[in-house]
């Protein structure tokens, strides 16, 4: 889950936000700042969330920039044990 804010062209902030809300897994919320709105993006994996932000949201018409603020990793697959060895070899 990623929390981010979006800077958008002020003239069409409402339109940009509506287009953003059409993206699945994305919710918007108000921010008390001109030219900005907040988003929370959820997905089954970080890959999916990343695709939403980088692949769709940042490319929306009117979006100047997407600035992630928080990322929660709830991924039990992240390894913690020791891994031995390393690739080597002379070039």
């Amino acid at each position, binding site marked *: 889950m990623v*929390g981010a804010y979006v800077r958008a062209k002020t003239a069409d902030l409402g339109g940009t936000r509506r287009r953003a809300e059409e993206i699945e897994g994305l919710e918007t919320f108000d921010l008390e700042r001109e030219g900005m709105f907040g988003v929370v993006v959820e997905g089954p994996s970080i890959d999916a969330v990343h695709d939403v932000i980088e692949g769709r949201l940042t490319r929306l018409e009117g979006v100047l920039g997407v600035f992630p603020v928080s990322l929660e990793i709830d991924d039990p697959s992240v390894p913690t044990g020791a891994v031995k060895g390393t690739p080597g070899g002379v070039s």
Partner: protein
Amino acid sequence: MRSTRREFMKTAAVSAVVAATSGGAVAETVLRPEPIRWVKSVCRFCGTGCGVMLGVRDGRFVALRGDAKHPTTKGLVCAKSLFLPKIVQAKDRLKVPQIRKNGVLKDASWDEAMELVASKFAESIQKHGPDSVAFYGSGQAMSEESYLANRLFKGGIGTNNVEGNPRLCMASAVGGYVTTFGKDEPMGSYDDIDHAKVFFLVGSNTAECHPVIFDRILATKQARKDVLVIVLDPRRSPIAEIADVMLDPKPGFDLPVFHSMAHVIIKENLHDPDFIAKHCQFKIVKDGKPVNVSFDDYVKFLEGFTPRKAELQSGVPADQIVEAARLFAKGPTMSFWTMGLNQRSRGVWANNLMHNLHLITGQIGKPGMTPFSLTGQPNACGGVRDTGSLCHILPYGRSVKKAKHREEMEKLWGAKPGTIPPKPGLNTIEMFRALARDEIKAMLILTTNPGQSLPNASVYRDAMGKPRPGKPFICVIDAYPTRTTELADVVLPAAMWSEKTGVFGMSERRYQLHPKIIDAPGESRSDFDVLLDFATRLEEKGVVPKGYIGGKFKTTDDIWEEMREASRDTAYDFRGITRERLRNERGVRWPAPTPNHPGTSRRFVKGEDPILDAGPYADNTLKPGEIKFYAAPKFRATVWLRPPLGPSEPPDDEYPFVLSTGRVLEHWHTGTMTMRARELRRSYPECFCEINPKDAKRLGIKNGSRVKITSRRGTAWAKARLIAGPREGMIFVPFCWEDDPSLINRVTIDAYDPGSKQPEFKICAVKLEKA
């Protein structure tokens, strides 16, 4: 009230965003899952120095969020930072020492590895002298680590062969600051962003390389309609989207643009004669020596750079130069630049000319008015530049050439008088050239990846790794396998930043502590521990005086005390930045000579800079707000009359394109860290080459097809990306991918600036073909 974990997370995410965008006012309302402990720290990536909160659960680093209470970055971080928990836990972290045996790296014990490293260094020093060994460090090591390595090599072993990768990114900025103002490091701070009305962004892809700074600029522009942005860059990077004036010179021919802007400013009487009369001097180099000239001489010199003449030299339309000059002079103007100005064979001069514009308009030392060099690494400033961990300098503004400075450091370090040589050691390129000639016999490489990041890389890869009789011994300390560890004789596994406690010093002179929050994996150790071990073994072998380092320092806290003392009576004085303050506060900007000093937003300004209040530079005749360039000769900053020379290797008939290299938003430098987050790797799975569509059409290159890029030094391959970013005749390739075909630094040139010794990564001549 009960809620699900998902709701908790969502509330936390929303709260973090609200906090970040409202100056942290509601940060305390964040609801957190109970098991998580949040620890204040600083980001591991670029020199912006974003405050971060690291989330720990069950001994694992599982979450990261921007620190809403951070005074300058206010909760913002970029995508790279958010993936740090995954990067730290990458599956292929190095966990045990390795020694090359019969051409293959084999696991070894720490004792066996360290004994081999120490023996090789000792043998070389005893047989060939101290200058037969070298240290190549990093703007990513902690300040305490760089300081310790510098102390060991210069004051213990007795060689100035101490370098670091900031030579590749920041050296020209250092040269610019020192030759113009007398001392390194910016005089302004991020505070100035909020006061500026004009931003002059030069050779800086701020949107991708310093996104949090870019956001602050964007916020200022959104909030105040009279804020304007001038961009000077031969490539239209994403910042061009917000440019009100876009100047795109022929690559390497921007010096005439700076001079021409100065010409317009003076011709139209937009300069500040009082400031110039009080605070500036003018110099030109004649017969290899700087000579003082008058303001009138400068005006005459600038006649060679009328907008029309500059247009002929640079390709920038004259009317745009005039417009940019008028806006700059109107101000308040804050200038930012990075590698586009620094990675040049005339990088110092380009920096000087940037400063010239601020000096002749008096736009310095006042809110919103400052030249500001952004840094690419988290600790190039605090760790390498400030601690003097380059071949020609000593800690906190001292020079190896000055006997007084050498004596001061020898005394503080307890070194034998005369140990520090008066001659600068080898700069980075010359150090690796000496390695190729087998004159450097042993090298310690720490937290950096020269096997991928050096220009003309094939030559230096061979120098490090090609088997041959008498091949120099290479020890690499790193947390991950890289294109450099594969060349090493010994690889030592390093702790990552979250696994050790130390200080990073970022672009605006803010020193910040990052605490250890988790244990390092396997047998990994901090670079600090490894350096202590190394020093002790060298003492036992008789090549470093007994007790010089061994037994003196147990933790990084211990050496910080000495570092603070080393800053006494210097322009850096940070004796007031105690360890306790660093633990409690969100960093402090030096100078801060006393424990109750809040830190300095603007240097050289009476009432703000404490260096003007007490100590060797004090001047109590000044009124609050008055400026004094106390480190400059006669207290006057220098306006330089620099010739408008172009790049070392301009394009020609055989190699008709200019290659420029750089970064992308999701990847950082050689990708050692960011490529280990699958999500970031996926965003740019392979290397690409930006080509202007007009050039592509002429060469029959289609979007997505493979192209071959060849220079006089080597070849690389990449996927074509047709975009009107680079101007015609120019291509752009990021250097983040490690695979052989994409290794673009096999193509780049190792020509370097004669002043800063920084290589010209940004410009070399290539030919481009369909692969």
